[in-house]
Every structure is written in C-alpha cells, then in structure tokens.
C-alpha cells in the first residue's frame, strides 16, 4: 500500500481517480452482490420462488436516479449473470431487464421527482409487467406451461422487499458525488 517513501508522483490525482472509480462502480458491485446473496441457502424460502429478484430493484433504482452508473451494458451483464446462475434459458433476464431499463428511462423525468410511495407504486407496476413478460417468455421458450404460483410469489416478494433495498441504495447513493 501507500508507504510514505514510495509515493506515486501525483498521489492526490491517482487516489482521487481510484476513489472515483470505486464510487462509480458501486451500483454495479452492489447489484452483483445482491444477486449472489439471493443464492445463499437460507432454508425453505428460496425453493418456492420466495426469493426477491434483486436485479429488478437494482436496475429500477439506479436507472431512475443515476442512469449514468447503470448503463445498458451493465444491465445486460447482470441479466446474463442471473440467467447463468439459475440455469435458466439464456436471454430472458437480459431482455426483460433491458426493457425495464428503457421503460424507466422514458418515465424518468416524471418519476424521479415523486415521493417514495409513488416511486414504490411505480416499481410495483413495472415489476408486475416485466415479470408477466418474463413468465410468457419462459412458457414460449420451454414450450410448456410453467407453474404460476411461484412466479406470483416471486413478484410479490420482489415488490415487498423494494423499500429495504431502496434504503440500502439510498445509502450508497449518498456516498457518491452529487450529479
């Protein structure tokens, strides 16, 4: 680490840039960690669709408040990672997340100024629509009807957990430099 003897010529510039990089990559890193955290074997919850889709909340929040830190390629990467982890047919998560990203971008100016409650209602609407599309795509790709119960449960849990995740994201957001 930085010993006082072997200091780089412009320590302030380098460390400031490193700091900036770390802060800029925080939204993506938090999203990846949350995605991995949903795989932790916490008992019976996970096995019946009772785990929230944290990627939806991550993409929604950061697209709404810091679209620059949640670029499309990151959304795409998150989707691919989610698909590979859950051994799902590839492509469904990237597509639905990108559509969410695009849809939120169009409503961003109106939605970002609203109170938390309205933002949450907005998330509920977006999440329901996206998960309905998700289910339809799964049915089309598997060419067989998928059980609806776990999907509905997943949708409910995802919406219910949003305030908690939002609180976490706000914490991260405050540590970033102002826009």
């Amino acid at each position, binding site marked *: 680490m930085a010993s006082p003897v072997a200091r780089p010529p412009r320590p302030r510039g380098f460390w400031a840039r490193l700091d900036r990089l770390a802060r800029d990559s925080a939204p993506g890193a938090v999203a990846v960690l949350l995605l991995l955290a949903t795989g932790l*074997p*916490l008992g019976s919850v996970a096995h019946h669709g009772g785990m929230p889709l944290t990627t939806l909340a991550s993409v929604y929040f950061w697209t709404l408040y810091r679209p620059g830190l949640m670029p*499309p390629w990151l959304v795409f990467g998150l989707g691919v990672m989610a698909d590979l982890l859950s*051994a799902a047919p590839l492509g469904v998560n990237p*597509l639905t997340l990108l559509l969410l990203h695009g849809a939120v971008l169009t409503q961003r100016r109106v939605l970002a100024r609203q109170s938390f409650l309205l933002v949450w209602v907005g998330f509920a609407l977006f999440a329901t629509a996206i998960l309905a599309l998700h289910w339809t795509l799964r049915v089309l790709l598997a060419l067989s009807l998928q059980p609806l119960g776990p999907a509905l449960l997943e949708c409910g849990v995802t919406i219910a957990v949003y305030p908690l995740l939002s609180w976490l994201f706000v914490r991260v957001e405050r540590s970033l430099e102002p826009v």
Partner: protein
Amino acid sequence: MIRLSVPLRQALARLMLPVLIAASFGLMLIGKADTVLIERARTQLADLVVPLYAALARPIGTLREAIAEVRGLILLRSENARLREENERLRRWYDRALALEAENLALRRVLNAPADPTPIFTTARVVADVGGAYARSALLALEPNHSVRKGQVAVDAAGLVGRISEVGDRSARLLLMTDINSRIPVQVERTGTRAILAGTNGPRPRIQHWTGPEQPQPGDRIVTSSEAGAMPAGLPVGIVREGRTGLEVEPFADLDRLAFVRLHDFGLGGILPPDQVVRPPRPRGRGG
C-alpha cells in the same frame, strides 16, 4: 481511451440499448441451439462463485443452526412428546429389522446369493440454491480433483434428492427431483408398479405414467427403479399423497434444508443428456 466527438458518443449511447436488446434475442437463439457452449459458460461462472459461497457457508450454517435452536426451544415440549412416541415405534421396528436381517443373512447363505456391493460415494456441501421461481437446482462445492460425474445420484440422510446435471472443476450443479425438467423412474414398493416421477417446481413432484392395472394409493412408499439404467433400484424417494391435480409424492429428503448430500457412483450410464449421446456411425455409402 479513445476520444470521440460528443454527437458520435451520444449516438452510440442511444444505439446501445436496441443493440443489446437484439443481443438478448440472439442469446435466446444460442441457448436453444448450442447447449454445450451455454453449459460451459454456466459451469465456469459456478466455478467462480462457488468458493465465495463456500466461504460463507460456515456463518450461514451458524445462523441457520441458531434459528433452528430457537425454534427447537419453543417447540421443546411437543417435540419431546413426539420423539418419545417415535422412539417407541422405532424400537419395535429395530427389533423387527434385526430379526429380518438375521433371516435375510440365513436365506442368502442358503441361496448362495452375493450381498449388494456398497457403492462408493463423495460427500459434498450444498453452498447455494439458485433456482428462483422457474427451476430447482443447487450448487455444490467440490474439491479440485474430484471424481464427480454428470448423472450421479444425490441422496441425503433420508432419501433421494436429485441428480448431477453439470460438473465443473470446483463445483457441480444438482438438479433436484422437484425441478420441472426432472424425470425419475420409480416404482411403488408395495406392488412393484413402475411409474415416472415428474417434477413440477412445486414442493411435491407428480407421479405419472404408471404401468399395470393397479393405481398407486396414497400412503404407498415410492422407491427408485432401475429402468433404463439411470438409477439403482430401491433408493427411498417418498410417500404418495393425494394432491389437488393428481397423485403427488412427498419426498423423504429434506429438500428445503439441504446442507450436505452424498453423491453415489453406481457405475450406471443410462439416460445421458442429449449432447452426450453418441450416435452410431452411419453406414458407409457405396463408394466407401
């Protein structure tokens, strides 16, 4: 970094989203067409994240134990009564089992029948369950030089759990028998009726396509069948229950709280995934 003019950069940024959406559709096509490639990508990601999960396994285990402890303290009295009753019942069974074992040994000696070989097994820790609403699978952490193969049978202390569907260097994916893609040949222990156990992504897989006139009855014990060489016969699977849409099987294995599984190598190679099926060589044409 390459410096681009502002309008060009904006145009590129605006193009990014549609291009990536198209790429998602492309991924869907690749996923349908080239399963080997996708599988390799999956195992590599699993190899990458499994050490992370394995490092977390201990604190998570402690947390789960603490929760179980609290629950145990709350239910201490009723649990105690239940265990006492069960103990009494099991002691009767124990006596019967000893008598039957002695009888079995005697009969084997008379018939000169060889004893069933004890299969070799590896124990693996379940470090993540990553299924979500559309799949039931778990990731296992393995030692780097493991001998786990695709298709191996996984059991916990009580019964069948599922089969290994993907194997990496340090990880393996376990397809639970409740997964919608899981089909397991089984038989009713009482009657010997063959059937297929089909996962539904729900907690209880469905029993279907039974042969013969006798329908499985609720309360029947289900064990694996050696049909098609995919499974050894006689592994305990579960109990038949009357479900809403038909007959279901309540698994013996505690699929909700898997911590360790035993992976048995029964030396069976039946029902390989499609990419491993070797087609017989085509007969040469007239010229060859």
